[in-house]
Structure formats: C-alpha cells, structure tokens
C-alpha cells in the first residue's frame, strides 16, 4: 500500500471481507507530464469496482480510457494517487497475494535472449515452483497455448503472436486464482484469437476469476459475465452484459422504399437512426412507434421492404457511453 493510497479517503471504508478477488474504491491516478512536470493528466478518476469469484469481467473503453492504468495499479506497476485497490482483500504489493495472480500485459515484452521454455520456467521459479512439478507445468501450459514445438527457439526469433502466446503461458504457470489480461487478443491471427478465447473459457470452467481489458467488443460479448465501460478515466456504465443490453427499450428496424428521407422526417416521428441507402431508407424507431409509423408510410404510398426487431448491442452501449462523455473519447483529462 502506498503512502498516497493510505492518506486518501476512499469512497467508503474498505473491509477485507470475504474473498472478492478484486475490490477497488475511489481509485485515481494522475500523471505529471511536460518538461517541468507542470501538466497533469488524470488517467483514472474515482473508480469503484468489485469483481466476484469466478466472474469473467471486461473493462471496455477507447484508447486512453484508463483500462490499462487500472490494471497497472492492480499489478503494482504504478502507484495510486488516491483510493485503494485490493486483491483477495489485501494489498496487491504483498508477494503471497501476487502468487495467486497471473498477468499478461499489453504488447508483452519478454527476455529475448531466453527461449520460450526458459522464460516460462523462470516465471515458474519466481512463483516458487521447482523440480518435476515445474517441468510438468511448463510442458502443459506451453502445449495449451500452442507453443509446444517452438518453445526451444530464442524469443528474439518469435513473431508477435508467438510472444503473446508465451506471455500467456507464463501467466498460467502458477495455476492462478485471478487472471489479469490486458488486450489479450491483440496481435493474434484469427486462429490465435479463437485459441485465446478457448483458453479464457477453459480457465473460467476451472473457476478462475478473469479480468481483461480490450476495445474489441465482440470479445467482451463472447466472454464476459460483467462489463464496465470506461471513458476519459471515468466509469460510465457497469453491469452484467445481459442487464446492460436488455435494459434498453426494444427498437424496430425497417427498410422503406418509395418515400424520400425528407418526407419520412416530416411525419413527426423521432428516429433513433435514419439513413438514406441506394433508393431506400433505413429507419430505426422505438418499438411503441413502429405500428403508427408503418401505417403512416403505407398511407403515403411507401413500401415496406423489411421490418425486424433491432437488438441493442454492446457496441451501441459503447458508442452511447462515449457520446454521453461529451465527445471526450481518447486520453485522460489534461489540466
């Protein structure tokens, strides 16, 4: 625990209750930048987060939203300016806490003079593993990430995807209770992405809690139980994927032919989306407006090509959150 985090007053008293793998209260990080360090960038502002045992939790946000900063604070790579982060109810700085955590950073960089096998073995030794058990684990995790055959080559000869896989292997070596993955699918080919997803799902089956951050929405939709959307260093949405998506009033999407967009706009309906296509108009309206709108279009001689319920996706949620943040999408607040 840093001096800064001890002095800071968290949003509510922190109790080391239960075994919530991740508990964050009022966490903020301000970086000093500029030649004279006279500018401040608020990378993270007052973040509260709870990740319960066995959850796959996604941090979603555009570049510079504070996702990686949150992970770096949890892994002890940067020190908090305010607030607290606890892993399993204790400070992340304590070695016995970190022994239960596997970490894959964004664009991982490994010791290039080692082979993949040597690097994973080194990681295992730092976790306190040794002997036959270590050898067996190294063999197993390298196989799991698809690096069994290339593991005796020096890392300097690896492609980006191979480095990513080896870095994942070292994160899995200790059989962690919490897996923290920063952009785990970046740099991977489609097959590698699929394998990475399968590994995450397999870890979830084992009961491992997983926190990962990404800006790839399809990964979040496919893998996560819960999601937090960060924009400009602030949490703007949080909840289970199902909750967030189904909480919105249903919409209907329709494609209209025979009436120009201007005429449709004069009908007095509020459109969630209206787009002129080649000779057709695509409209999206709240479910309650769908029936009267259809009638109005038919009365004016328009033709309905297609009508279908529109599913509110995480992508919509993400774009809506960015809009709510006042257009500030990239980077923290600069003062």
């Amino acid at each position, binding site marked *: 625990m840093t001096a800064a985090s001890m002095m800071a007053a968290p949003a509510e008293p922190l109790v080391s209750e239960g075994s919530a793998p991740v508990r964050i209260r009022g966490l903020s990080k301000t970086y000093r930048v500029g030649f004279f360090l006279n500018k401040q960038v608020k990378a993270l502002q007052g973040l509260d987060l709870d990740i319960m045992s066995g959850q796959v939790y996604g941090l979603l946000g555009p570049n510079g939203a504070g996702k990686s900063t949150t992970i770096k604070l949890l*892994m002890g*790579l940067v020190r908090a300016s305010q607030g607290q982060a606890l892993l399993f109810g204790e400070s992340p*700085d304590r070695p016995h*806490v970190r022994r239960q955590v596997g970490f894959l950073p964004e664009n991982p960089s490994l010791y290039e003079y080692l082979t993949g096998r040597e690097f994973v073995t*080194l990681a295992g*030794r*730092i976790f*306190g593993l040794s002997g036959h058990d270590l050898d067996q684990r190294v063999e197993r995790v390298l196989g799991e990430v698809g690096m069994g055959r290339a593991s005796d080559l020096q890392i300097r000869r690896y492609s980006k995807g191979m480095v990513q896989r080896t870095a994942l292997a070292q994160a899995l070596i200790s059989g962690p209770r919490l897996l923290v993955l920063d952009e785990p699918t970046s740099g991977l080919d489609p097959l590698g992405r699929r394998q990475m997803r399968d590994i995450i799902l397999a870890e979830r089956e084992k009961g491992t809690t997983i926190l990962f951050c990404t800006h790839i929405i399809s990964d979040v939709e496919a893998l996560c139980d819960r999601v937090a959307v960060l924009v400009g260093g602030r949490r703007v949405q949080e909840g289970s994927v199902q909750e967030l998506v189904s909480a919105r009033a249903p919409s209907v999407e329709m494609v209209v032919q025979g009436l120009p967009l201007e005429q449709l706009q004069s009908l007095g309906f509020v459109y969630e989306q209206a787009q002129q296509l080649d000779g057709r108009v695509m409209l999206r309206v709240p479910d309650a407006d769908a029936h009267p709108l259809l009638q109005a279009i038919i009365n004016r001689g328009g033709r309905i090509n297609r009508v279908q319920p529109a599913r509110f996706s995480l992508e919509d949620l993400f774009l809506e959150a960015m809009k709510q943040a006042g257009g500030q999408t990239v980077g923290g607040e600069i003062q």
Partner: protein
Amino acid sequence: MGAFTAMAWNGFREARRNRVTVLVGAFALVLLFATTLVTEVTVSTFDRVVTDFGLGVMSLLLVFLSIYLSSGLLSREIERRTIFLMVSKPMSRSRFLLARLAGNMLTLGVLLVAMTLLFWLQLVLNLAPITQPQLAALWGLYLELFVLTSAGFLLSTFASQLVSALVTTGLYFAGHLSADIYNLGTRSKSELVAWICKATYYALPNLERLNFRPRATYVLPVAASELATATLFALGWGALFCVLATLVFERRDFR
C-alpha cells in the same frame, strides 16, 4: 532454486549470452596471453611487468564491463518494458533489484576468476611466484567493481543507459583522483575552492583505497587490517548506493 537465485542466475545467463561480454572476455584472455610478448622487452623485472600488465588489463576490461552491464541493467528493462512481467511477480521490488545486482556481480566474479587463472598460469609457466599482494589486488579489484556496479545500478533506476554509463565513468576517474582533489583544496588560497574540493572528496568513494595493484607490482605486503578496512569501505559505499537505488525503484511508476 528460489526466486532470488533464479533471477540472479538469469542475470548471469543474460550476460553470458550478450555479445559484448563474450567479446570483452575473449579480448581479455588474448591480452593476457600477449603478456608473454611484453616480457620480451624486459631484462630483469619480468615478475613486475607481468604482474603490472596482467592486473592492469584485468582492471581496465572488467571496469569497462561493470559500467556497461550495470548502467543498462534496469534502464534497458524499463525501456523494453520487460520490467512489467517481473515487477508484477510475487517478489518485492527490492529483492528483484538485489537479485539483478547479484547476477551482475556473479558475471564479473566468474570473469575475474577465469582471468586470474590465466594470469597465474602465465606466472607459473614463467617460474614467477604468486604473491600475497597479488591476491590483495585481485580482491581490491572485485570490491571496486562492486562499488562501480552499485553506482551504475543506482543511476539506471532513473536515467538512461548513456547517462548512467557517462556518470559512472566520471565517478571512476573522480574516485581515483579524489585524494588529489583533496590536496588541491588544501593548497588553494580560496576558501570556496577548498570547501568544494573537500566536499567532493567526502561525497565520492575514494577508489584508491581499493587499489593494491602498485603494491602487487613491487611485492609490498598488504596487512589484513588494511584489507578488512577496504572491504568495509567498499561494502559501505555499495550498501549506500543499493539503499538509494531501492528507494528510487520502490517509488517508480512503470507506465
């Protein structure tokens, strides 16, 4: 093998696979072999020339290597971001730091032993004696390497490799000249100059206290008490640099 030993051993492995270390090691061995050629120009002072040249070569190359290795040790890890995977592991930052230092000292120690064996082989083949002052000079050299490595190490916690290397090289020269700097102050008429010289003398490690090479050349025995004092002196400076390095490193953000 514990985490500390694994990291220290990895440091040794890193240096062993580094081309610069291998080249310097090979160059040193060739130079030591070449000592035989130097003896061709001497008539009656063979022992002195071999000792002076051999210890000089070892000192020069190992000091260069210690500055090169220590100045880039942490700054390279930070620049290449390999530090992310190490600092997040179940090992405190201070232990990581000391393990890296131990790896460096192991590398320098192994090279020193290899060079010493070759140096002694030269002496034995030429029927020259292995003397106590030579052993003292070798121990003094290792202590000097420890002080320089710790200093380079401290600098590499916050500065780039180039800056660390330049400042450590400056420290090496200033450390060997610190007695002269003190004398300069005592002879100066300006109080300010005298004060600056004195302050410089006390602020820098006097590396001449660890230099027993002239004594080895002229076979002047080194007292055990003198060696013990030199050892404590070097350990004190090394410990100071390590504590400062730990303080800086513990507070650093790795972005």
